[in-house]
């Protein structure tokens, strides 16, 4: 059965771009969610939009599940392969097709790396705003599929807010073109609907991105606080002042420890939490606003504040923050990255409760978060070699997510549902709402071949863990047909 399918796929691509050998498939088994892996039937590596369209249409014809993959950095299992399906790797569609500095737009293929857009735009004083921590390697296609965020979301929004146009091949095989180079559209926002579809609707082929002018001036401050509560208080004070910083981030002690080890950053000593605030704008505006910010920070009683003196220091502050997730690997190579959202004013309370719950579970938890918009990233550390440790970590993760829902937040701020959180979808949405989303999905993907087994709970569990049944399967939460 699969041989026939493979040969039909092989007729679409040169043999060396359809990977079927065991070592080739092994390399694609996971994405950024390391706890899961799944071996695909084959990996197709197209080099043009036409090849992608042919592949998707062939999959539709063969009823063959497929998973689109950029750099495989998803933290929710979004590009985790589906057993019995193929991976369509988009990394070689990596050209910037057009960059128009006057119109401030770029048209890119899905495999273009996030920072490459800003690098290409930089000589014109422009940049691409969404800046997830993985931006040095994650791709625009992935950013669109998961509506990736980053540190500047409160002021500038997420990836979807910067997509002006899309050409995509839907899982139904239809090729569509929506939007264009205008900031506005007439009629429903199709690009907006496609953003964050988690690969369930189809594959983007050409994406028109909005570029923003780089602010003239930045004022970035690192402030250390004795307690996490104080840091949270400081955020509330900043927000209440009417200032609109470009970014407000907090890292707790564990995360600081990791970041220090990774990039040799030097953080103020004796701090349980560090706050990063960044103002930006024309120099006259920043001059005035920074004075206000300084007053506010002073009143928040930090252990120490360190304003960046130049661009290099600013880069260093951000480098420490951006590597924090992966750096936690130094403290404990096994960990689960969470992505919950709580109303910002309840951030302090949320962190306290997370601390409490971790203690009860006997696990350590590092916290990095976009304090400006209440988006938490608890990193639950565990020892994979310890029997039952993964289960305990997953259980703690579940409790944290439920807490977010209970507080009126969300189970995911920017990583998406993917594989990892699908069993929590019914806790956020009613059966009717899930049915509505399933109907929508069916409109785009009638055969359910695009990234099946993701986002929606129940049904086929596409993942196999190395040691047999996944603990959630053992617990009866996930199941396989």
């Amino acid at each position: 059965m699969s041989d026939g399918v493979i040969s039909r796929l092989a007729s679409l691509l040169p043999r060396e771009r359809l990977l079927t050998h065991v070592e080739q498939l092994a390399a694609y088994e996971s994405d950024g969610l390391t706890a899961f892996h799944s071996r695909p039937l084959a990996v197709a590596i197209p080099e043009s939009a036409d090849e992608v369209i042919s592949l998707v249409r062939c999959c539709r014809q063969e009823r063959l599940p497929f998973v689109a993959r950029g750099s495989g950095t998803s933290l929710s299992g979004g590009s985790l392969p589906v057993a019995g399906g193929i991976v369509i790797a988009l990394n070689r569609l990596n050209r910037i097709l057009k960059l128009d500095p006057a119109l401030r737009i770029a048209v890119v293929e899905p495999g273009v790396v996030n920072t490459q857009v800003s690098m290409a735009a930089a000589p014109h004083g422009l940049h691409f705003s969404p800046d997830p921590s993985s931006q040095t390697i994650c791709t625009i296609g992935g950013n669109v599929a998961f509506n990736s965020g980053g540190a500047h979301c409160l002021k500038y929004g997420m990836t979807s807010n910067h997509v002006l146009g899309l050409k995509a091949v839907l899982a139904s095989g239809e090729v569509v073109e929506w939007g264009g180079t205008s900031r506005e559209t007439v009629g429903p926002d199709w690009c907006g609907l496609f953003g964050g579809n988690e690969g369930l609707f189809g594959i983007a082929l050409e994406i028109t991105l909005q570029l923003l002018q780089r602010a003239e001036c930045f004022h970035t401050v690192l402030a250390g606080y004795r307690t996490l509560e104080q840091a949270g208080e400081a955020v509330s004070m900043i927000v209440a002042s009417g200032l609109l910083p470009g970014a407000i981030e907090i890292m707790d002690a564990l995360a600081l420890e990791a970041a220090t080890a990774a990039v040799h950053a030097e953080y103020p000593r004796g701090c349980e939490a560090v706050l990063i605030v960044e103002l930006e704008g024309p120099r006259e505006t920043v001059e005035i606003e920074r004075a206000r910010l300084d007053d506010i920070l002073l009143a928040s009683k930090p252990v120490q504040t360190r304003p960046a003196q130049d661009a290099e220091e600013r880069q260093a502050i951000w480098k420490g923050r951006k590597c924090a997730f992966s750096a936690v690997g130094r403290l404990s190579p096994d960990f689960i990255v969470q992505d919950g959202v709580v109303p910002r004013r309840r951030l302090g309370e949320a962190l306290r409760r997370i601390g409490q719950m971790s203690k009860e579970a006997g696990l350590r938890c590092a916290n990095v978060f976009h304090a400006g918009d209440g988006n938490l990233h608890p990193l639950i550390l565990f020892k994979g070699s310890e029997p039952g440790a993964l289960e305990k970590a997953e259980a703690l993760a579940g409790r944290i997510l439920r807490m977010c829902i209970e507080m009126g937040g969300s189970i995911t701020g920017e990583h998406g549902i993917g594989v990892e959180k699908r069993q929590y979808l019914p806790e956020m949405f009613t059966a009717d709402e899930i049915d509505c989303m399933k109907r929508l999905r069916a409109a785009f993907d009638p055969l359910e071949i695009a990234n099946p087994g993701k986002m929606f709970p129940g049904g086929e569990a596409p993942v196999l863990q190395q040691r047999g049944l996944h603990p959630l399967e053992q617990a009866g939460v996930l199941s396989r047909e």
Partner: protein
Amino acid sequence: MQHSIQPQKIGPLGEPMAHAVQACVHCGFCLAACPTYAELGQEMDTPRGRIILMKQVLEGNLPWENAQPHIDRCLGCLACEPACPSGVPYRDLISPFRTLAQPHFKRSPGEKLRRLLASQTIPYPSRFRIAALAGGVVKKLRPLIPSALRPMVDLVPSSVPRAQKLPRIAAAIGEHRGRVALLTGCAQQVLDPDINVATIEVLTRNGVEVIVPEAQGCCGGLAWHTGDLEAARRFARKNLDAFSSDVDAIVTNAAGCGSAMHEYHLMLRGTEDEKRADVFRKRVLDVSVFLQRLGLREIPRGAGRPQRIAYHDACHLANAQGVRREPRQLLRAIPGVEICELTDAHLCCGSAGTYNIDQPEIAASLGEKKARVVVATGAEVLASGNIGCLTQLRAHLAKLDSPLPVRHTMQVLRDAYR
């Protein structure tokens, strides 16, 4: 990531390898730094992918030969290490793995011959000299040479410089500020013996006495990086014996050698020489680091005019030894010098030990890209700290018909003194 590797079943190198696999969280940041991912665009040829393959082989879940092409294609440039937020010590995995793989990897007769030739000539300057001279002749008969050997022939210079006899002890000039032992390197002595001459001159001018131990030999890097553990250990032990302890530092002027010597503790792990190897490696410094720390007593005169020097970071200096600042600082000490940085500086030039012989297409692609970047700087000379890079870049600049001279950092300094 989680693994079921059993280090005790593997031997002394098992634990470092298992630890490296353990540290990887599969985040993918290394893909942005890996030259083979940039060239080949597939996950098996990335550090992350290679870690998975090596893990599965060590677990017994994947046959050795399946992993082979991708492990062979690894440059060993270690650009993945600074890019990795988790601090995966990739070097503790790749070279040990290659030593374990040696009996299992299949090689064609041509490959075997090439590897044999390389391992039997390059580490032995007198043999290599003969081979290089022969190569210079054989170059003209290129079409008749088996394809497996052609890349070797391509890299041999058309003329081999005259050998330079080095003093056993070079006295410090003026006030005595330090005493070092110099590793003279092997290929370097044949391909560009002036590098050692320049190194000694710069050191002695700055009051440093230079010992050149006679009993030394090849650092063992070539053997270690191509998986010949026994040979690597032999070379290592020889140098452990040859270098005495009454010097301030053991200096190297070839990045590949310095980095190999820093791994002696790994090569000799589980042997009786492990402890002294560990002590030894901590005394090894690249000459630029030693000099910069000591401080130049005499400021070079310079060319008396502005000079634009492009600096190429050898992977085994920048990534393996973390040395980036010191060579630049030394070069900037020359009056009038402006350092030109290369775009995509993190990408290997493709030399990578004998990589340009074993993986000629990838090496050529990287070499050409690097040469173009160098030419684009508009600099008047290219400086670097590794003979492999110098050879590769000379060859590829020549292919572009560029007359740009390629010099070792010590040669540039020495010339600036005169």
